[in-house]
């Protein structure tokens, strides 16, 4: 699955996107896997209140199913307009 990062999440992790092999069933499980990788991931995912997630380009919550997801994106609250 493709994982995308935007804004300060991208900066903290140090890349805009990557491909990961995962058995995670939900966004929360995926985050737990990513957190365990390296310190920069742990730092980026330290406070879930400061993060938003989109699965296949639809805004959703951390309990969303990712078993058939092609693309999961993590980013801070949006500031459009």
């Amino acid at each position, binding site marked *: 699955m493709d994982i*995308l990062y*935007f*804004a*300060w999440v991208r900066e903290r992790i140090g890349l805009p996107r990557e491909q990961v092999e995962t058995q995670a069933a939900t966004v929360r499980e995926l985050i737990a896997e990513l957190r365990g990788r390296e310190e920069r991931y742990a730092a980026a995912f330290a406070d879930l209140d400061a993060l938003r997630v*989109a699965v296949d*380009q*639809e*805004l959703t919550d951390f309990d969303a199913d990712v078993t058939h997801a092609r693309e999961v*994106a993590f*980013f*801070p*609250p*949006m*500031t*459009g*307009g």
Partner: protein
Amino acid sequence: MDIRVQEAAFDLGAETGRFALRQAGMGAVVTFTGIVRDVAGGLDHMEVEHYPGMTEKALTAMAEEAMGRWDLGDVLIIHRFGRMGPDERIMMVATASRHRKDAFAAAEFLMDYLKSRAPFWKKEHTGEVADWVAARDEDEDALDRWQP
């Protein structure tokens, strides 16, 4: 409906004129324009990042929702990304309706949703410092009034 996500600047007068011209039978056109503000002083430029693909989808869904909720003839949304200096235009929304109330309400609805539900992020560059603009609670709260 006309939804554009682009790096290039746009001509507000020309866009508004074109939009108004193609509205047969519409008595009201409302436009809103967002402009880069130098809030703290010393802003060099702003950088707007977005999520290609999702941005277009999210804006289209918002415009469709507005068309369904109000008696609208048309909606235009232009939102820029990339680098912009103070006083440059970031985005515009235009709505056309037979009645002004619907045109105003739909424009406000679109702006409230654009602020917190369209995947854009702003970074302000001031001298050597660059900071991501934080989302405001008021913007999130503004969505409540549109709940059915």
